[in-house]
């Protein structure tokens, strides 16, 4: 019998379980990557539904006195579109990316609370299902901010308004739970060496967003509960007929609603801050300034809500105060934009689709930011508030801002999630359709707003001269929709036929590119030690150094072998 071999030093391997792939494994999963993909897939469905609603509305408005959609259905579409895009697309899509990427980026094996993570996904889905169930009876029609008294029991008696309330509750709960999970994960599970100054900027964006959610969600939760009791239990928070105040609803809603804008856009800022340096082949310009302005924006945003209410009966002094505080937020935002542009300065720029979307974001978001400063000046707001100018402004911020960032993130991280590249040519085509379509759709709406067209009207008179602009806007909407469909087609095609990506197709900076694409269940075989804000740079240098050393060793070994062979041969000959 052979004696037992002494244990050799080796890279210890874990027990690898075969990944289950049947459908039950998807609905019972607590793996952060699978939950992330579930989020992203669900959000894509809601995005398409919301997009169809948008295209329907634009079709109705294409010509004056159109009868494609009647007033009742139009108001329902307005409400469903806004609510879907905000609560069922932009906010959860960031939860999806955060779920997938944050543990990978900070070098962790999962979120801090994996089962809580699954709970927040299923709460979000049930919110969406409850809301869309109302389509079969009577969808809500009081607008996405459901101003009272229009949304109370007298003026919106149907159950549609209640499904809206449940949607806010369920998705809100999902967001709050997810946010707590994110904060704990980032605070406690970073890889060794990853101090706060080495946290990727996307994680800064997500962390700040999570804290904002924890601050803002309870307020809207309280507000919709009050609305629910007003509607069904004869309380009187918002009804002026028994001493309530409709303005109270506006205050509560916008106290949540304005931070919500930053909840939607801050992760987008994070994506841009990750994408630009990778494709400019240089570090981000002013890491600390960008991180500081991210948290600065978030915390300033809790004291600007009344700029959504400039036309309400509010004392002038108060308007002045909210104008100044709103303008102040432009400072950190401006700092970010300039830092991003400076990141490209003296780079060596590689033109890939994620960079296209990031640059599109920069151009369009700057326009949206500038119109935002104009709106903060309340005498200007008096004129354009509630008009198509506002519609244009917030679509510049949320579509050109948040959705462009989502597109950049999709093209950037799709290879990591699936192991396959998205098609570059289809991606660039999709970008140009979206960019041009967006500008045509929403650029022209500024002028519609200035010429007096209010938002949320289902039709308009021919003699108002709004026909041409609206037609242009509708054509733009179809171009934009084509662009989005091209990306959807790209995703579907690349899932099967995309080029294999390998672990690090972009030669990027952050830890998620260390592991395989898609990553194994346990994310990393080894957790690396982080030495800077771009850990992959050192790891690549080190691997290059190691492989050079290995080459040298091999060469030496070959040399030694050949020497040995010669020696042996000559020895044989001698023998």
């Amino acid at each position, binding site marked *: 019998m052979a004696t037992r071999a002494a244990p050799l030093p080796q*890279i*210890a*391997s*874990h027990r690898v379980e075969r990944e289950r792939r049947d459908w039950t494994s998807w609905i019972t999963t607590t793996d952060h990557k699978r939950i992330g993909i579930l989020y992203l897939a669900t959000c894509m469905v809601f995005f398409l539904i919301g997009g169809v609603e948008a295209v329907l509305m634009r079709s109705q408005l294409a010509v004056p006195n159109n009868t494609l959609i009647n007033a009742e259905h139009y108001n329902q579409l307005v409400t469903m579109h806004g609510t879907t895009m905000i609560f069922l697309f932009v906010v959860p899509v960031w939860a999806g990316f955060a779920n997938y990427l944050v543990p990978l980026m900070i070098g962790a094996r999962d979120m801090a609370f994996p089962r809580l993570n699954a709970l927040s996904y299923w709460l979000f889905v049930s919110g969406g299902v409850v809301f869309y169930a109302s389509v079969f009876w009577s969808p809500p029609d009081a607008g996405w901010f459901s101003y009272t008294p229009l949304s109370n029991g007298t003026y919106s008696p149907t159950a549609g308004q209640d499904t809206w309330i449940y949607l806010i509750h369920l998705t809100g709960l999902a967001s709050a739970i997810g946010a707590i999970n994110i904060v704990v994960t980032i605070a406690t599970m970073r890889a*060794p*060496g990853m*101090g*706060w*100054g*080495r946290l990727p900027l996307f994680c800064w964006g997500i962390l700040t967003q999570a804290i904002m959610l924890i601050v803002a969600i309870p307020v809207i939760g309280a507000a919709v509960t009050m609305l629910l009791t007003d509607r069904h239990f004869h309380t009187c928070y918002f009804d002026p007929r028994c001493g309530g105040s409709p303005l109270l609803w506006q205050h509560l809603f916008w106290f949540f609603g304005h931070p919500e804008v930053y909840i939607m856009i801050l992760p987008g800022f994070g994506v841009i801050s990750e994408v630009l340096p990778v494709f400019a082949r240089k570090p981000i310009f002013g890491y*600390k300034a960008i*991180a*500081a*302005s991210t*948290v*600065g924006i978030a*915390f*300033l945003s809790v*004291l600007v809500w009344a700029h959504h209410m400039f036309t309400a009966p509010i*004392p002038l*002094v*108060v308007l*002045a*105060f909210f104008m*100044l*505080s709103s303008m*102040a937020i432009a400072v*950190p935002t401006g700092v970010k934009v300039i830092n991003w542009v400076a990141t490209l300065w003296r780079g060596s720029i590689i033109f890939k689709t994620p960079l296209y979307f990031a640059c599109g974001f920069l151009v369009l978001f700057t326009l949206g930011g500038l119109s935002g400063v104009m709106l903060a000046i309340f005498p200007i707001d008096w004129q354009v508030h509630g008009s198509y100018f506002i519609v244009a402004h917030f679509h510049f911020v949320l579509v050109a801002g948040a959705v462009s960032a989502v597109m950049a993130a999709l093209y950037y991280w799709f290879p990591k999630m699936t192991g396959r590249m998205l098609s570059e040519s289809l991606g660039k085509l999709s970008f140009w359709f979206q960019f041009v379509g967006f500008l045509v759709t929403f650029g022209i709406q500024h002028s519609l707003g200035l010429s007096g067209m209010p938002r949320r009207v289902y039709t308009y008179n021919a003699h108002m001269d709004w026909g041409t602009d609206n037609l242009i806007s509708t054509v733009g909407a179809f171009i934009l929709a084509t662009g989005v469909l091209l990306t959807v087609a790209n995703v579907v095609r690349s899932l099967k036929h995309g080029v294999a990506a390998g672990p690090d197709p972009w030669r990027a900076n952050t830890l998620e590119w260390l592991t395989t694409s898609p990553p194994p269940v*346990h994310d*990393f*075989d*080894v*957790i*690396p*030690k982080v*030495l800077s804000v771009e850990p992959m740079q*050192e*790891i690549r240098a*080190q691997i290059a150094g190691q492989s050079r050393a290995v080459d040298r060793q091999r060469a030496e070994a070959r040399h030694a072998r050949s020497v040995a062979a010669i020696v042996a041969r000559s020895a044989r000959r001698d023998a």
Partner: protein
Amino acid sequence: MSIAAGAPGWGAWSADPAVIGAVLLSAAGYAGCYRRLARRTGRRYTGHVLAFGGGLCVVMVALLSPVDELADRWLLSAHMLQHVLLADIAPALLVLGIRPPLLALGLPPALLRVLSPRARFGRLLRNRLMAPIALGLWAATQWGWSIPTAFDFAAAHPLVHAIEHLSLLGSGLLLWTVVVDPLPGSSRRALWSRLGYLGASRAISALVCLPLTWIGTTLYPRYAVGARAYGISALTDQHIAGAAMCLTEFFVFGVAFVVVFLDLLARDEKATYLAERASRSAPDATARQPVNAR
């Protein structure tokens, strides 16, 4: 909109000997510290001097300028502005003026010993309970002195008024000590709770200024029935008081938040760097540790 008879103009400065004495005394003490610091390091610290000097100027503006006279008898908004200057802006600047390395290298050894973590006072300052106590005092002075009865009573009685101002200044100094963390020896720790305390302090003062901004009735009888200056009605005066207070706190919050955040990042970076230098004995940077060892 004519100026009501008697409302003070720009020139109405007073010369309260107690205030001037206190300002001169602290300026002299600061100059001593600064000279010692400059001698030791051979460098100039203009930022520190500007902050401290600015803080003293703000105290003087609050207590000696026409603001004081207006606050006493005419305008609620002037009085609230005076409180913000005393409780928030002056302390913030003063504490910024003594941020590291001023105390560590500038204080005479005897005082340093008192402040050291081993001395009783130094331990007290670094106690875990210190921050909640500072926040509690901040809340007590902010809310307590805003109660209409207390507010009007203080405005009418000079001694109570002086106590009010001292307590506001004191609680402000304590709060900003927690937020700025100027004590010698603690500069390496990145205490993220500092941001939390800053946020909490703003939430506390927002509970004073937001109601003043929104409420549609006057709350302070002294100013509601008193003489009107500059044609400002009592309710508008109250709205201005609330809005000005909110706005100042808001800007202070924004700037302080970013500054403290950057300071924390720098401290965290330094701590990581020092820890890495200490463990430089292990040359393999990306230590390949086995998975199940975690």
